[in-house]
């Protein structure tokens, strides 16, 4: 618990540092274009990795093929078409429930 608390505290401090970086300390510094490009790629690279880790793996081992894979694919298609949080959530949870009931 103490270690977990420390982890969360350090993550919080580091995150505030990142958020405040350019609006306070470095207000007069412009981000070099190459770094800005790299930062703009953080979200797609990390988030796709997180999808891989949470959908296809379970505690580091392969998740057996099943409803989660299918519902994940449906959710990804809905997200692509609608680009909406709400519809993706509804489609994803809806299809996982439907498939669980069906299979």
């Amino acid at each position, binding site marked *: 618990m103490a270690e977990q608390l420390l*982890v969360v*505290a350090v*993550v919080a401090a580091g995150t505030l540092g990142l958020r405040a970086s350019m609006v306070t300390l470095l207000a007069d510094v412009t981000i070099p274009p190459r770094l800005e490009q790299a930062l703009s790629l953080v979200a*797609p690279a990390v988030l*796709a990795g997180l999808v891989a880790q949470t959908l296809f793996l379970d505690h580091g081992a392969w998740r057996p093929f099943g409803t989660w894979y299918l519902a994940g694919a449906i959710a990804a298609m809905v997200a692509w078409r609608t680009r909406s949080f709400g519809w993706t959530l509804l489609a994803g949870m809806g299809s996982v429930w439907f498939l*669980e009931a069906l299979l």
Partner: protein
Amino acid sequence: MSEPGNAGQGSGGWLTRASLLAGARAMLPLSIGAFPFGLAYGVTVVESSMNDLLGVLASFIVLAGAAQLAVSDLIDQGAPWFVVVGTALVINARFMMYSGALAPSFRQYPRRWRVPLAHFMTDQSTVTSLLYNAGQRDPRRRLGYYLGAAVSFAGAWWLGTIIGVVIGATIPPEFQFGFAAPLMFIALAVPSIRDRAALVAAAVGFSVTLMAKDAPMNTGLLVGAATGIAFGLLAQTRTERPSGGAQVADEERSDG
């Protein structure tokens, strides 16, 4: 655009109720989306070996859904602390970019406001505010709008988290609430793919994370993300080159 907007002039006139409400109202659809995701995060925390109260605390002091979910996932897997911290900060590195994008408007705000305001920076509040700022030059309006949007969004996230943690233990496994974690990442990842470079970064990040699943100390995601960013940059360089079309065509011919 000159509505009176003089109600509730506190704090030396920096905040007007009208601009706060305008921000909150513009953010409403996104806040409605944040609530179920907060709920899902709360349930995930209950199901993981992360302490429940700490999971709630994280929503207040970290205030970043993707990083929070990764933290609870990695803690659950027993990853060492520096890997948990490192992964979370890599996920949140994008805030540096947002900070740069918001800096021109933040420079107009009183100095003491800047850090507290920065804490409420999220993907959603940044994008919403940048859109508003493009057509609004008055710093007071901008500040109120940002605050209204960002804090109402955070409020929905907090409420969702708290309810999720409270009811998490009572939700039967048939409800498949664990699926909410990958679902949340899908809903965030897909719209982040806006061009070819981002697509390359996502595809490589995805595949390498899976390939590196047995990497020591749960560093698979870090390795995957770093490789994805590197390949995305490469793809960007390749698409940028065709400034002189004939020259590129020549190069391609000599390559083949």
